[in-house]
């Protein structure tokens, strides 16, 4: 019976696991330290310099080339701060472009302080990986930094990260020996130059939405996303104002087609392409050294060119992005969290941004630093500055947008005519729209829309399926000459009018309370009004002039909304808002029903007992 042995072994391992799991759970329920780092001293230091004094073990992620500098800066902070804070920092090289990927695999194992490119901001907030800045810190950061960058670190109206740089934009590097100065402003001339010299024009159109957007911004299109913070501290995209699919968008893709159709177009954004036969590379400041080491004195950097469509010229736009620094929420270890915020503030202040500029040529986000002469003289940053009138702050963009937009160039290249180009934009629009259409149910649902119920073709009234293909609205009060239609998924792609799909508006003939009925099985005459019962009387502050709709609760039984009734008030129930068919307390055309006592009632109307159909139900 040696099964016992196997079982024992299993037991030991399971216990080992469970014990660990157990202990970590305990730490979440009792105030203790978080799981990822050990804090060697949380007691306020004996010197009593500040409630934050202590030594903290932290992990910091910065880009590979900034590791050394950051270590120095943290050491300097340990020396200079007056709060008695000491950081024992492990600084790991993690690219700003991929920090979120690793962070979101397991937030608790991620760095306490980390740098990231702004396109990952929304994901990080949503994943609970960024701690909101305190009120004072927010105020200081907002005052000191470029508003565009502050916007990139803001979700809803809450600031979640510290501005680190403001140089994540692109512009044009070129080989002076190939490209004549006078051609720099014209895309067409540049393409011609490249083709003549058999050199590449590197522009990463086919794989990156970031670069593709350049064309659309050039023609004035926008893709502006609105975020809200949710109750559970996340961030949610609630709407988008996207005009890529428009007349201007069509101009943009026409311009784009000129480039992507050129045999010398290369979809890349690496400065190293200069060594591989490129004469132009569109990329950013981070590539300045690599480009200079290849081209030397032949390297030129300037703003993007203009392109010409139908006689008008459009200057290529660009994204102006930034890098941010975030603090990971530290659970109930508020002291450590506060200390980390202090450090983050220090690492992103004026002096530290300037140090970073001097050592790494990172363009500062700090307003004062941006005015610095040395900053303005840097060739890469100068080109960026030259491009800046045409650039758009990146703001918050839905994570899926990058995947959706990056295929535009492929579609454009494949397009054979203007219809093809339009198709590319249509595809794009549909996919963007799909981000906000939540479920297939909602997509399939029918609704009434029109100049009804006090709305002006701007509100959808839901309809419910009663039988396959037949949908009904709730009872609604309609007036003569009011118009409406029915549509599916709150879009006009599928809609019915009085004479069928896409037909004319249905016009109401007489005032009344109706249920709107849509029968898709009779597509020639799909819409009809169904009589609905309503209560009318000297009730609820009205005097026999207002119908209160009643809803079907079961076969032949209808109920009104709860309303306050007073003793002595009288009412009847009638159909279609007219007296043709009506019921009173004693049946058809009977006497008024008289309320006996004050109270909040639901008017209950039961056609199964036509002699005494009316009653009141409290509630």
């Amino acid at each position, binding site marked *: 019976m040696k099964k016992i042995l196997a079982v024992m072994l299993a037991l030991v391992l399971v216990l080992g696991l469970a014990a*660990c799991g157990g202990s970590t759970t305990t730490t979440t329920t009792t105030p203790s330290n978080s799981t990822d780092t050990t804090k060697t001293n949380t007691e306020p230091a004996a010197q009593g310099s500040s409630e934050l004094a202590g030594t903290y073990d932290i992990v910091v992620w910065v880009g590979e080339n900034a590791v050394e500098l950051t270590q120095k800066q943290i050491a300097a902070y340990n020396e200079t701060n007056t709060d008695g804070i000491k950081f024992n920092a492990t600084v*790991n090289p993690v690219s700003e472009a*991929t920090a979120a990927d690793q962070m979101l695999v397991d937030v608790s194992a991620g760095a306490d302080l980390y740098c990231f490119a702004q396109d990952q901001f929304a994901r990080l907030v949503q994943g609970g990986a960024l701690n909101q800045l305190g009120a004072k810190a927010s105020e200081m950061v907002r005052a000191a930094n470029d508003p565009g960058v502050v916007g990139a670190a803001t979700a809803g109206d809450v600031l979640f990260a510290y501005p680190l740089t403001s140089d994540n934009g692109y512009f044009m590097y070129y080989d002076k020996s190939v490209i004549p100065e006078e051609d720099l402003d014209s895309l067409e001339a540049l393409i011609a130059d490249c083709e003549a010299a058999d050199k590449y024009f590197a522009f990463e159109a086919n794989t990156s939405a970031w670069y593709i957007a350049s064309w659309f911004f050039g023609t004035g299109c926008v893709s502006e996303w609105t975020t809200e913070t949710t109750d559970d501290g996340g961030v949610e995209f609630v709407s988008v104002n996207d005009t890529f699919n428009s007349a201007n968008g069509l101009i943009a893709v026409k311009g784009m087609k000129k480039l992507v159709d050129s045999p010398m177009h290369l979809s890349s954004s690496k400065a190293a392409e200069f060594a591989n036969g490129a004469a132009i590379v569109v990329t950013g400041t981070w590539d300045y050294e*690599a480009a200079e080491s290849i081209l030397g004195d032949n390297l030129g950097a300037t703003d993007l060119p203009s392109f010409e469509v139908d006689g008008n010229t459009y200057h290529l736009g660009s994204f102006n992005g930034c890098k941010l620094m975030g603090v990971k929420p530290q659970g109930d270890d508020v002291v450590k969290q506060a200390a980390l915020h202090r450090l983050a503030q220090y690492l992103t202040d004026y002096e530290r941004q300037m140090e970073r500029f001097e050592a790494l040529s990172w363009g500062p986000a700090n307003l004062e630093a941006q005015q610095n002469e040395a900053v303005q003289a840097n060739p890469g940053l100068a080109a960026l500055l030259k491009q800046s009138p045409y650039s758009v702050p990146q703001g918050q963009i839905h994570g899926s947008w990058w995947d959706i937009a990056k295929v535009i160039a492929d579609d454009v290249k494949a397009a054979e005519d203007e219809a093809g180009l339009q198709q590319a934009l249509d595809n794009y629009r549909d996919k963007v729209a799909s981000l906000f259409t939540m479920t297939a149910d909602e997509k399939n649902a029918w609704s009434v829309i029109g100049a009804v119920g006090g709305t002006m073709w701007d509100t959808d009234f839901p309809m419910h399926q009663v039988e396959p293909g037949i949908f009904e609205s709730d009872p609604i009060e309609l007036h003569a000459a009011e118009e409406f239609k029915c549509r599916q998924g709150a879009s006009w792609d599928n809609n019915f009018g009085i004479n069928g799909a896409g037909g004319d508006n249905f016009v109401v003939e007489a005032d009344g309370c109706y249920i709107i009925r849509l029968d898709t099985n009779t597509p020639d005459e799909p819409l009809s009004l169904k009589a609905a019962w309503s209560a009318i009387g000297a009730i609820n502050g009205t005097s026999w002039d207002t119908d209160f709709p009643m809803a079907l609760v079961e076969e032949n039984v209808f109920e009104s909304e709860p309303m306050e009734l007073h003793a002595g008030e009288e009412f009847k129930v009638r159909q279609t808002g007219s007296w043709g068919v009506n019921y009173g307390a004693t049946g058809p055309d009977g006497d008024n029903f008289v309320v006996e006592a004050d109270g909040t009632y639901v008017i209950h109307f039961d056609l199964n007992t036509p002699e005494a159909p009316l009653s009141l139900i409290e509630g």
Partner: protein
Amino acid sequence: MNENTSLKRSMGLRASARISNSIIHILLIVISIIWLIPFACILLQSFRVESTWPVPYVIPETWGIDNYVRLFSTDFPRWYIMTFVIALVVAVCQTVIVLCMSYTLSRFRFKLRKFLMQFMLILGMFPGILAMIILYRVLDDLHLTGQYGNSLPGLILVYVASSGMGYYVSKGFFDTIPKSLDEAARVDGATRAQVLWKIILPLSKPIVIYTVLTAFMGPWGDFVFARYVSQLYPSAMNVAVGLQSWLATNAMTTSNYTMFCAGGVVVAIPVTILFMCLQKYYVEGVTGGAVKG
């Protein structure tokens, strides 16, 4: 058919054999060249010192060993040693486990045997990628990840723990050893364990070496799971994750590409030499085992 024509035919055969052999030789040379080009290119690029990014030519303009020297100023030696240790331990443990598993399934007939084999076959059909996220969390709870400085035992544990699933090849091999050998020994009073130690294992050199070899080669190439476990601590990376981290972004590729090639060469050398030396056993193991399923 008279003597004469028969002789002619055999002469003709010999001549045509010579021609076809020459054609085959040429073909083999061509194939070999195609096979070797990428490796030759890696090697050549690793000696290029005039630039550090990818270029469209092969022969370096300036030769040097700068890239190899640079390797030693990075964490590379550490990654290398770590991967080597993992590979060694995994090679030993995995071999023990795989042999236990396959020997049992080949030699014993017990109640759940068929069920076990079918069950493992079905398990193998699930894509393993998702399991990594779960295993990563388990390791993190056991404090066997980068932040605890323990990624080495963690990786070994995961590599070894599931290795029993890969019993097919060696079971196939054991199936080819006649059962009469065991039975004879059992009659002489040997226990089952003694049969395994004294009779079977000495006959199983090819499959043992095959298993050791494949187990040793595995850990060098893992970059997805090892990356999770490292939690991006450079000290906790294995060589594949470390080398890949050099090509993480365009800018990094520009400055690290040739060093990546040098690292690749250094990684490939011991594995390749070991493989070449033990190739004979590998072939015996594969042919003895793989086809038997």
